[in-house]
Structures are given as C-alpha cells and as structure tokens.
C-alpha cells in the first residue's frame, strides 16, 4: 500500500466521512488512512452523521456500530437515515463489538462490510478502496459469524436460495475466517480475485436479504441474555 497510482482501480481518490463518537479514534483513523483517501467530514452522533453524509455525499462512510443519539439504533440507524442516497454512498461498519447481534444488525441495514477497529492503517485503506469499487469486505470474524449463522453444512438446508450458502461460497468464507486475504483465497481455490469478490458479494447479499428466521434467532441467542 504505497502512494503509487493504481491504474486498474477506477476510483483514484475516495472521499470518506468518518463517523465515530470518539474524537481520538477519528483523528487516529484520519492519520492512518492512505493519502488517496480524502476525509471530507466527521460526525459523532447519529443526527450529525445523517446530516454530514447527506451534505457531503462521500463515496464511503466509515461507520461505528455504536453511536449515541437518534433513537438508539447506532450505525444501523444512520444507514437507514441515508437510505435514499442509493449506491453512490457505501457504508463500512467499524466496531470493537464482538456481539453477533450488532454485526448482523448493521450488515442487514445495508453496510457493505465489517471490520474490527484493531485493523491496521493499510488494512482499512484497502477495505475503503474495496468498498468504493462496489465490493464487500469481510473480516475473518464476520466470516466466522456467517458460517455460524448459516451453518457449515452447505447442502443440508432446505430453505430457498437465499437461505443457504453454495459449496463455493462456503469454501470462500472458511478461507477468509482462516485469515486468508482475497488474493490468497483466489490462489488457494484456483479462481480469480474477481470471482472471490463475486462470491463474497453474494454472501453479503444473502446475509442482508435472507428472510430465514434462524438468522435472527441465532443473532438473538448470541445476545447476552
């Protein structure tokens, strides 16, 4: 991740709004981000976030899952509040939370990815570019959640297409959970990175659209009490 221009990466600069209630974290993240990523705004609460995102129309919003303000919905509420912006603004959830319910809530609200806050500067920059170009970003932990929620047996499920992962998607999820990067997954499975991205996006779509009640129940069970 150096400053050399990447010709095959269409968005050469990416505008970003950072939403987090901790000023220290915001400034830390700001200095960690790649120089091709322009921070056009910051917000600390749900209301501020919705206002700033609507005013600036950034390519990517780095969104903390837990935010004060609003009706208490946190990051998911921000996404819902900006729902009419469409695909021009994409959300990357950023959290320290381990709770499956938080993660699933924000993903189902429409976030294109989820990373933990301990991610490195290069890692987050990479994720921002990926999100900006329309891909999904899965951390190993999110992949673990997906596997836990959908089950690790691909064929046993009887639901509709949205309710289960294909064998390939399962393989991809497993490798990501094992800590593989997309490139390494591609190499491992003898497919192109683009195909990996397609699989991951498909899983994300299933995670967002699946009406399977087990998913909700599973997340609720993971809640503490």
């Amino acid at each position, binding site marked *: 991740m150096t400053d050399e221009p990447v010709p095959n990466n269409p968005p050469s600069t990416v505008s970003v709004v950072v939403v987090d209630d901790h000023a220290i974290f915001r400034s830390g993240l700001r200095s960690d981000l790649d120089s091709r990523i322009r921070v056009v705004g910051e917000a600390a609460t749900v209301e501020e976030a919705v206002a700033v995102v609507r005013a600036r129309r950034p390519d990517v919003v780095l969104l903390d899952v837990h935010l004060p303000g609003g009706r208490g919905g946190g990051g998911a509420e921000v996404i819902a509040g900006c729902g009419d912006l469409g695909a021009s603004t994409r959300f990357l959830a950023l959290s320290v*939370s*381990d*709770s499956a319910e938080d993660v699933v809530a924000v993903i189902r609200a429409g976030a294109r990815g989820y990373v933990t806050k*301990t991610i490195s500067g290069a890692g987050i920059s990479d994720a921002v570019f990926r999100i900006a170009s329309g891909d999904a970003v899965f951390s*190993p*932990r999110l*992949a*673990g959640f997906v*596997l*836990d929620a959908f089950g*690790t047996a691909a064929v046993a499920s009887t639901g509709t297409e949205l309710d289960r992962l294909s064998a390939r998607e399962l393989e991809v999820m*497993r490798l990501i*959970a*094992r*800590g*593989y990067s997309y490139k*390494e997954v591609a190499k491992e499975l003898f497919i192109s990175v683009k195909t990996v991205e397609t699989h991951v996006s498909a899983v994300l779509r299933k995670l967002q659209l699946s009406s399977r009640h087990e998913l909700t129940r599973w997340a609720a*069970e*993971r*809640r*503490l*009490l």
Partner: protein
Amino acid sequence: MKPPLLRSPDGLVAGVCGGLAVHLGVRLRVVRVLMVLLALAGGAGVFLYAWLWIFVPMASDRLVAPLRFAPPAPTLRPPPAPALFLPAAAALPSPAAPHPPSAPSEPGNAAPPVAGAFVRPARRAGGRLRPGRKELLLGVGLLLLAGVFIAQELGFAVSLRQVLPVAAAGVGAVLAWSQLDDARREGLRNKAGADRAAGLARLLLGLVLVMVGVLVMVSGAISWDLTWATLLATGAVLAGVALVLAPWALRFWKDFEDERAGRVREAARAEIAAHLHDSVLQTLALIQNRAGSEQDVVRLARAQERELRHWLYADPAGHSGNLTERLRALAGEVEDSYGHPVEVVAVGDAPLTAGQEALAQAAREAIVNAAKHAGGTVSVYLEAGPSGSEAFIRDRGPGFDPLAVPADRLGIRESITTRMQRHGGAATIRSGPDGTEVHLKMPEQENRSHDG
C-alpha cells in the same frame, strides 16, 4: 457479630421464629416452644408474633434487593469472573445463614433443590412448605373449636352465632395478611407474577370472609333492612374515597416502582464500576507505568481487551469446559507470553473430550510456534461440531520446510503430529513464503457421549 434480625424464608407461618433463633443464636425448636407457651399465656405470644411479622423484614427482601440487576441490559449479565461477585458473595452468607440451624428440624431439606441461584430459599418456601402451613392452619382451627366446646362444657354460654362470624373474620384477615407477605416476595421475585391470579383470589376470599363475618356480627344487632341501607351507604362512601385516593395511590405506586428501578440501576452501576476498577483502571495504570515499552503496552492492552470482551460478550450458554472456551484461553495465554496478537474465530462448539483437549493442546503448540518464529498476527480458526473439530493456525512469517526440521526438535513432531495421531486425529503443515498454516483435525469418536 450477631446476624441481623430477619424473618426466615423457610418458616412455617411467617418465619418469625426461625429469624429469632438465628438472631439470638438459640435452637429453632426452643424459640417455637417458647412462642407457643407465650401464646397460651393470655395470647401474648400471638401479639408478639404478629408484631414481629409486621415489622421484621424478610430475609429474601434483603437478599433480593442488591442482586436483582440481571435482566435490564445485555451487558449486565452476571460475569463469569469470580472476583466480580465479591460484593454479592459477601452479602449472601448472612441471609443464607438461617438454613443450617433450621435444616435438622426438617428432614426433607437435605435434598438439594433446584439450581435456582439466589431465589432458592423463597421458592422453596413457596413450593414445598405451604402444605405444612395448611396443616398448621387446620390445627389452629381445630384447637379453637376444641376451646369453644370446652368452654361450653364448662358452662360458659358461647353461642355458635357469636363464634362463627368472629372466626370467619379472623380467617379472612389471616388470608389477606399472608397474601401481603407473599405479594411482596412475589413482586420482587418476578414482575410477571405467574401466581398473581391465585394471590388475588386469596385476597378476595379473605375480604369476603371478613365482610361476611362483620356483617353477620352486626346483623345480630340491627335489622336486615337497615343493614342493606347501611351497606349501600358504606359502599358509596368507600367508592367516593377510592375515587379521590386513586390518583394518589397510583402515584405512590409509580414512585415506588421508580425508586426500585433506580435501586436496580444503582446496583448494576456499582457492579460495573467495581469491575472497571478491578480491571480497566488497573490496566490503564500499568500502561502509564510502562509507556516506554511498546510491546508491554500492546500486551497489556490486548490482555485487557480480551478480559473485557469475555465479560461483555461471552456466550452465556457456553459454559467453560467446552472446546471453544479452552482454545480461546490457551490462545490468550500465548498472546500474553509472546506479545503477538492471536485472533481466534470459532464456529460452533464441542464438549471438551480427551480428543478435543489434545486438539486444543496441539493448537496451542502451533500458536506458540507461530508467535515465536513468525511473529505478527496469528489467525486461528476453529470449526467444531458433534462430528468432530478442525482447527487452522495461520501465520504470515517467512515459512519453513517441515521436512527440514531436525529430528531432535520435539516441538512439531511430538506436540502436534504425534499427539493428534495418538488421539485418532491428524495434523498437516503447509509452509510457504506467504506463511505457515497448521491444520488440525480431530474426529469425535462414536463411543463418546456428546452431552456436555
């Protein structure tokens, strides 16, 4: 130090004697006999008992207040760390103390009841001892009846017309009063109040009994016509008073609820504060001391993060003794001793059988190797289920040639490969310039039980 005077939840009637026995350090039976003797001495015991019943709080009231914080927020689940429970644990022994002295008098107590945590005493009193209470009531009734007959035999003109209404009123009053006791306990125990209907029925029954008793008593003196008119007038007045007082009563009730909710919040806050003080503040102090050493700071921060995460997010159902928990603990140890982050992602869980323990130990060895030789973040992925478990330990070090490892190096061969094979599992190691990945697989034997 004398234990506080609290009514025992195991009592036959209201636990007054039990509480007194504990407070005074006398045998329960002695207190009971004394109380009965006093009761026979012109009813002094009865008055004493009633007085204590009204003014001495239940042990469970005291016990429940600081402990009922569990449900309100997800983060307030009682944590597994034992140190956090010190305040609560310190509060427990004193109200629980009534059990040992009272146990010998009731043989059934020996069997340990449900795993109902701290509401156990109250529940036991409610569920098991009520039959005893019923018999007691019956006995008292029979005794009174006998007294009446004896009085008649001796020549006192006691007409049934006079006794019955008084008895009815008395029984009704006792019913209503015992209801008050239970209602308070019930309300504290669970707000849902499954027993509400039964309690209400008892209250109504008591009320009706008292009213009928009083009415019959009164109607002996005045004519029925007048009685009905009076009843109507009384009803109207009572309704008017109720109308006036209702808002006030409602407000009183609301204040009471608010106050109780506030107390619950306060207890929860104290609990969190205690935990934060024990863990986070200590770590922050340590970090300030070691600000010079980056590795120490990272290590402390990681250890604290892990501990706090465990407290906040640990699966409440996932009791210790399971594979996931074990692997996380082992990974945490390695992280602490080598200072390299170990990211554990676990899917599913399995009971910790000998085979799975071997897998966890082999995984630990692999994590140690990765932390020692490769450095950087170590990714651990565990997939466990009823049919067995698989673990992947991956690092991004320079890699090595598994075959080139000298034969005298026991680490990999003995601790990982042989250990897995001994328990019917397998280990494969892939290493390349992108890093090393150890794959461990341990099928669950058929003959092992899967309960856990």
